[in-house]
């Protein structure tokens, strides 16, 4: 969670996160895609799967147990249907996973590529910034940025964008330095190709698999981070059905209504496992034997 340095080091050294082999790469990948795909479809098709609106209040039916008629996962203190909230909340949490990760993947990779390819003072400056951001506990820095901008889901994205690119920059730079000295890159340069073409057509394709594998680990971290910030009141704000906010809302009813806080967490875990399996499967397929 929260982008462990360990996963980052693994990506930098080009080994898969854990060498776990739960079946072959393709099977792992397929299971991961199946889990994540099901959740994406369920969140997208939420209006078809439930007739309740996520914020529809039913004062006559508060804290209904799971498996109650009409409410398969029960209701919360306002009588809002939990299944509907989890499905609609999935849209927000998946948006966090993809929105936070995709922007940082692109920016970080470009910065790392330029930094590693050209070297010189640009590289020195960028790498000093990277080292500096790494010195901070990641979550503390994100919270500090949100504190200054004001708590909201958009500012949470800004804070993640501002801080997360550094991991990608570091990974891409390291592998770019290696690829730069390979003969195919030297040949491309000798043929007089522009720097841009060499970077995008020759260096990037040899670097990108490391980035993609790390991005899956990072997505697991970003889902957890988004939910953690929602839980702390620093991300999505109530009455949003974001899963972290739901867990936080349910905390006051923990003893009387355990399902309020626990069930959204199960959804979070499923998303995390989905991304992890995809990452492991890709690592097996893209970088066999490492």
């Amino acid at each position, binding site marked *: 969670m929260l982008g462990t340095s360990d996963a980052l080091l693994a990506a930098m050294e080009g080994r898969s996160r854990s060498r776990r082999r739960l079946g072959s790469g393709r099977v792992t990948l397929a299971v991961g895609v199946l889990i994540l795909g099901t959740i994406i479809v369920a969140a997208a098709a939420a209006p078809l799967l439930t007739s309740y609106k996520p914020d529809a209040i039913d004062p006559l039916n508060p804290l209904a147990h799971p498996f109650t008629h009409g409410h398969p996962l029960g209701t919360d203190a306002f009588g809002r249907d939990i299944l509907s909230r989890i499905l609609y909340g999935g849209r927000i949490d998946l948006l966090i996973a993809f929105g936070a990760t995709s922007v940082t993947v692109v920016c970080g990779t470009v910065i790392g590529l330029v930094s590693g390819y050209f070297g010189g003072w640009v590289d020195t400056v960028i790498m000093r910034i990277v080292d*500096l951001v790494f010195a901070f*506990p990641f*979550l503390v820095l994100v919270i500090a940025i949100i504190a200054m901008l004001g708590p909201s889901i958009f500012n949470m994205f800004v804070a993640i964008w501002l801080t997360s690119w550094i991991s990608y920059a570091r990974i891409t730079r390291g592998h770019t330095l290696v690829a730069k000295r390979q003969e195919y890159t030297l040949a491309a340069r000798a043929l007089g190709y522009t720097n841009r073409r060499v970077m995008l057509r020759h260096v990037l394709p040899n670097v990108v698999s490391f980035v993609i594998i790390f991005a899956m680990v990072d997505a697991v971290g970003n889902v957890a981070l988004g939910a953690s910030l929602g839980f702390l009141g620093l991300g999505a704000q109530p009455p949003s059905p974001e899963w972290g906010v739901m867990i936080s809302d349910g905390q006051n009813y923990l003893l009387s209504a355990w399902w309020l806080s626990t069930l959204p*967490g199960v959804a979070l875990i499923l998303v995390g496992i989905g991304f992890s399996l995809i990452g492991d499967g890709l690592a097996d397929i893209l970088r066999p034997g490492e």
Partner: protein
Amino acid sequence: MTGRFGFLRRRLLQLIPVVLGITILTFFLLRLIPGDPARQILGQHYTPTAAAAIHKKLGLDEPVWTQYRLFMDRLVHGNLGQSIYYNESAGSLITQRLPATMFLIVYAAVLAAIISIPVGILAALRQGGVFDQSTRLASLVAFAMPSFWVGIVLLLIFALKLQLFPVSGYGNGLTDHLWHLFLPALTIALAFSTIVIRTLRASMLQTMRMDFVDTARIKGISRMVVLMRHVVRNAIVSVVVVFGINLAYLVSNTVIIENVFSIPGLGQLLVDSVSSRDYAVVQGTTLVLAFFVVAVNLLTDLAYAALDPRVRYE
């Protein structure tokens, strides 16, 4: 001996730019506030005179580099500014909250070591066996579990249902602290263990393939003795490194878990200060936690060098 002091000196010199960088970054955090910080702080009570007073208090009426010099000047005197919410110095607030956080971090680190060292060793000994496979499956699931949710589930089961542990707080005295902080420390330790187990296992497997292990076995030393003296001893060094490089992650988790269990530490102070727009406290807490990570990283590097002499001469 020169090697040892040379390493120490090099490592201390490397600290200077990092420490300076941390102060610059935390200083510029306040600049992120959109619009006029005084307007944000005062809210409805905004008057030009009050705003001018806040500007003066935060030093915003000076040029940036004068402000930074002032900030550094205060910092070396231990002055982190004034909390507008608690009406107390941010420094003394942080000092009051620091012990709970430090206690929790150390407690979690110890529990993580107790959990992961035996599991990591056992998993490596029977590579691909039932225990190894189930450990890997468990860590796949554990990695996907957000720690605050794990904390809530542990709280629900062990504090609310079984009533074995208190629901929140920090307690008084050592044994009381150990009892109060057991569930929060366990939550952090579980998240951290997945990383430590993985590294320890990989490191053990790598060491077991080394020539010196075969040499020792050929010399007739028993498998158990070779394992304990040669393999585990080398692998434990990697645990020290894991603790060092993932310390920031441990601190991040502590911030969240303090809020789940209402522990009066720096994490709770940080999150509370965000909602009360207490910028000086946010700045101070960020600074202290970053310095803490840098300091402990230095200590783990030195410990690593002491445990493994090869590091010093690299």
